[in-house]
């Protein structure tokens, strides 16, 4: 366990990290945010991003990792830099919950929009989604094992 703890890299909201070989990428307490993992099984390389919003409405050039499209672009770019191939990448999409009934319902909840934006962007980039755990009204935590590609999702409710 201690050995594993030392390999864990935490990724908070509006951030993205990459790991190779035996790294563990973790994001804890995902509500309406969306977590996308990309894994190259041949290269044993992976990236995890944790954007909070579907669209960059103000076209800001700052805090780009807050936005789904920009975060996915950043993941692909950094994975390619370390030798991963886009055509080999497998994606998993987690989160996008609807946590507050009153605040998060119209027209579509932030969580729903985030999940849809991630799926659309991955499709556009030609990246296969191999697993999807989105929606509902429960928060999630994720650990992504870059050695195996396994993504573990847990909840507290």
């Amino acid at each position, binding site marked *: 366990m201690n050995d594993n703890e030392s390999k864990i890299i935490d990724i908070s909201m509006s951030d993205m990290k990459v790991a190779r070989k035996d790294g563990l990428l973790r994001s804890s*307490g995902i509500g309406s945010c969306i977590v996308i993992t990309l894994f190259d099984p041949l290269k044993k390389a992976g990236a995890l991003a944790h954007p909070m919003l579907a669209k960059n409405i103000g076209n800001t050039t700052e805090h780009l990792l807050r936005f789904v499209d920009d975060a996915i672009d950043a993941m692909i770019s950094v994975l390619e830099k370390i030798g991963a191939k886009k055509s080999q990448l497998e994606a998993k999409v987690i989160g996008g919950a609807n946590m507050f009934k009153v*605040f998060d319902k119209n027209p579509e909840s932030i969580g729903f929009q985030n999940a849809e934006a991630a799926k659309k962007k991955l499709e556009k980039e030609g990246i296969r989604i191999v697993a999807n755990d989105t929606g509902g009204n429960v*928060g999630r*935590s994720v650990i992504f094992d870059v050695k195996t590609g396994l993504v573990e999702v847990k909840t507290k409710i």
Partner: protein
Amino acid sequence: MKEQHFTNEGIKALEKMATEGAQEASGALSKLIGQKMSVATVAVRSVPIERVSEFIAQPEERVTTILMSLSGDVGGQIMLIYPQQSAVNVADFLAKRSLGVTRELDEFDKSALKESGNIIAGSFLAAISNYLNVNMIESTPDLATDMLKATVDTAIAKFVGAQPSEAIAMEINFGMSTPETSEASKIVPELQTKGYFILLLDISSAKKVMTSLKGISGGERMIQRGGDIKE
């Protein structure tokens, strides 16, 4: 850093304002639960929005978060966060049950906790509206029980998504104790009841608050950091 829109003097002025608000809010809560309550600490921090939950507890800690939006002259968002043990304690107080009876919140408890959020936020805002001479109105509350970061980050995403500008977060930490539980809680940690009050303001609202604060001559009260008010 771009987020640093407040100077040290600004933070101190906000702490003073928050203390006034916290005193009002604790008074309102005392009336609501029929117990004498006191505010243990008031702390105001200006932090980047991504880091708001870090100063409260671990990301996966189970909490009940009551969320309200803020409108009027100043726009923003308010969160009242109870660690789960505190949430059930407050529910017991509100329903006049013996402390420790409640393990899980039912719909009645949730409704009562929302009302506690309404009253605490309302009295807090009334005090600082009066202090600043600005109009601030809170919306009807919504509630979620889940991991701390899941609830807080969702509220933040909603806030940032509605107005794509930067935001300032002010955190006010309430430590609450009653005469009956203050001694006992030193031995039984479950009796400790605490809450966190977070105010998110967009930059234009934060500037309005700062401008109003500059117009107020301070000095009649001194605040000790994390302590009580000294007259």
